[in-house]
């Protein structure tokens, strides 16, 4: 599987899911479970991605400069600092820690 194939298949999958919403009858939303599960799936996957991106290294777990960077990010989001600024400051935290020789 090449990167191009991954890009195209994933793009078409996401585009199709958007189209399906316009094709199904409106009373699908009368049952609360589908939209609740979709919302919780989003939360679960994003949270799992945070965890794996912070501690994962292939099939191993590494505690490194990403952990303090994540803590900085959480604190800044709690203080309602804008998205881009938080991402830059989190990256800078990890970069500076690595520059000092750890992680």
């Amino acid at each position, binding site marked *: 599987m090449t990167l191009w194939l991954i890009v195209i*298949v994933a*793009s078409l999958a996401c585009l199709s899911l958007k189209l399906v919403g*316009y094709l199904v009858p409106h009373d699908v939303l009368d049952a609360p479970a589908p939209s609740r599960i979709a919302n*919780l*799936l989003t939360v679960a996957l994003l949270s799992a991605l945070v965890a*794996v991106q912070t501690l994962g290294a292939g099939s191993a777990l590494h505690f490194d400069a990403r952990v303090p960077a994540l803590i900085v990010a959480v604190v800044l*989001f709690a203080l309602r600092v804008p*998205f*881009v600024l938080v991402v830059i400051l989190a*990256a800078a935290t990890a970069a500076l820690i690595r520059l000092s020789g750890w992680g």
Partner: protein
Amino acid sequence: MDSDDALECSDDSGVARAAVRAGLAVGLAAAAYGVSYGALAVAAGFDIWQTCVMSLLMFTGGSQFALVGVIATGGVAAGPTAIASAAILGIRNGIYGVRMAPIVGGPWWKRIVAAWVTIDETTAVATNQPTLRSQRIGFWTTAAATFIGWNLTSLIGALIGDALGDPRAWGLDAAAAAAFVGLLWPRLRQLQTIAVASAAAVIAIVFTPVLIPGLPVLVAGVVAVLVGAFNWCANSDPPLVPLEREGA
């Protein structure tokens, strides 16, 4: 909507202007984090073309960040799980589509264009407007601002990422985790979502040493299906689109 006809009439252009303002503000905010997406995609090994094609075709930030994140940790071998992660995060756009279809209306080609740009931002702005006309104005303004901004800043981010070189030295791997926290943050308002987020993080970590890269994230999704199906730790009234960024 609750006001009487006379008030509604005199207020109509004001309502429309408010919808345009909200759309532009949200579009601008979304465009700003396209830079981080572009840089992370290139750091994960995608070229500039692939990075831009994803923004054009997929056009849904969460799925794009997920695809890039899974490939960054698992490489091309994690392709199937990366695609699955992106698709699962794209399911909610389908749910938004069910809500948006009667608002958008019009011929089939207009609905296809609308479906393409039905994401968190456009749905949030549209459903926040008081009249059908302002809902449509809000939807299409947000769509145009977000689509142009997101694609332009993805390209800028990709060029920056390309120029930076070693992603770890610049902390770009940590930036990916921070970006996911930013996407997750506005959704953590009820006990149910906080419980699911916590359980999913723990499950993903526990399964990381035993499963192939990418799969632990999908396994964590099972929590969402179970909690959602049985409505454990139920909320009173969860919002359709939890969007903190709408400043207008």
